[in-house]
């Protein structure tokens, strides 16, 4: 019974003598594997060697500071709204006098927490942010955690360190 017109009848010859003896093909195959035997392995030994994942890889979150070292985040909450996993939560606070060097805007996030078990690293917070404050780093992954208490990352882990500033490839 023919189900479709896509069946093609192939005429297969009986194996030739060289093919029946097997040995020429086996010798050819052995040479191929021997060639690979002397090739450099393509393995990247992961924890010791890390591969460059590209400038758009979405890894560890970072709360950027501006060029003067003041936090950019103004606790508008747009990232928390955009977050499909509801991983972000924050508590806003008004900037006091004398804190202009610490916070760029008049309102800032006193508490800023990301639940790393919830986060799906989609990058929507980064897109939603009007102040260019939150980014997902391309060069660092969220470390493995061994305890549930370590899962929620606060400002101590998220805010950019001034001696280790984050610069994405392609930025000035």
């Amino acid at each position, binding site marked *: 019974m023919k189900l479709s017109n896509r069946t093609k009848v192939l005429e297969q010859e009986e194996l030739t003598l060289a093919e029946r003896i097997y040995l020429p093909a086996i010798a050819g195959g052995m040479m191929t594997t021997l060639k*690979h035997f002397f090739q450099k392995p393509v393995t990247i030994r992961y924890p010791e060697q890390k591969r460059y994942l590209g400038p758009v890889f979405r890894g560890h979150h970072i709360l950027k500071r501006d060029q003067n070292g003041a936090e950019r985040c103004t606790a508008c909450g747009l990232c928390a709204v955009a977050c499909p996993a509801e991983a972000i939560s924050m508590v806003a606070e008004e900037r006091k006098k004398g804190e202009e060097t610490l916070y760029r805007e008049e309102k800032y996030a006193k508490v800023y927490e990301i639940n790393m078990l919830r986060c799906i690293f989609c990058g929507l917070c980064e897109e939603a942010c009007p102040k260019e404050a939150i980014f997902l780093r391309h060069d660092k992954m969220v470390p493995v955690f061994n305890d549930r208490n370590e899962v929620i990352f606060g400002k101590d882990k998220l805010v950019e360190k001034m001696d280790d500033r984050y610069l994405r490839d392609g930025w000035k």
Partner: protein
Amino acid sequence: MELTSTVFTAKAIYVGVIFAITLGVAAYSTYFERIFAAFFQDRVGPDRAGPFGILQPLADAVKMFMKEDFIPANSSKWLFILGPCLSMFTALMTSAVIPFGDTIDLGNGVKFDLQGIDVNIGILWVFGIVSLGVYGILVGGWASNNKYSLLGAIRAASQNISYELAMGLSIISILMMTGSLSTKAIVEAQQNGHWNILYQPVGFILFIICAFAECNRTPFDLPECETELIGGYHTEYSSMKLGFYLFAEYINMFVSGAVMATLYFGGYDYPFYETVVNSFGENVANLIGFGALIGKALFFVFVFMWVRWTLPRFRYDQLMNLGWTGLIPIAMFNVVWTGLIILLPAEFNLSSWASIGVAIAGIPVLIVGLFIYHSIAGGKKKKTALAR
């Protein structure tokens, strides 16, 4: 009395050394199998346990011993235990007759053979023990009370019987050349570069193919074919009992490499033997010969692994077809042609080069013969419908 005890002590030490070498090579074969597999597939392989992972066999052994040693409830318990023991036992016995080296002078005119025992049925002993080896698999597979194990065991038995015939026939050519069954005599006949591979190229190819089948190695590892039989005869085995089965396979590989070196590659013969004897003395030269044989055997172990990571497994009917209709007729041809190799130069008083010439001329004759047979018997076209 003094002489007997010296020889006895030396023999005991020798047996211990051979035992240790065999076990050591087998243990490290597991490591090198994985390393070579990785290299053939552009990977790195085990490199975590110690530098370059050289402690991996130790880790594997510890793992094997620590695992639960499970015996299925419905198995016949004693046979279940006997299976791996038989496999290991037969694998270790074979090396007794392999001449690992020439004689060593122990002083006081005592000569000591670097060979377990030189019996005049040497090669028959190897064959007998290798045939016994299949009992380990058969008993283990039967005792498991599992249909997959039993199928694996049956496959192993029929495969070994089929390939032993072709193997025996290819050995007969060697026996015709040497006129003796003693492995020592076979090696002595090949000294000074008259290696049997030059006179028996077809025989060697037959022998190595059969050796793959006898060791249950890919492409003939049908008894433990995972895709069809789970684990084959060792499906039900765990812990060190499984370890013994796997270990026995690697010992068999090493020993069959040593047998191939003995039969076809001159045993402990190596080039420039005379020069070494003149400059360092006979003992050193013979010890290098010992190393040469081990080296040759290890090379064959490498070939075993190389083939394993190159070729896919045969189908069972292909395996039987190849053994009965391919290898046995060619082996018979080889026996007849060996007669020519021996007779022609003797008849016309030619040198050994002439026998090499006759031996090499055998290959085109064989191919022409196969071609004629093929064009008479084959040549049908198969029609196959392939859906695109």
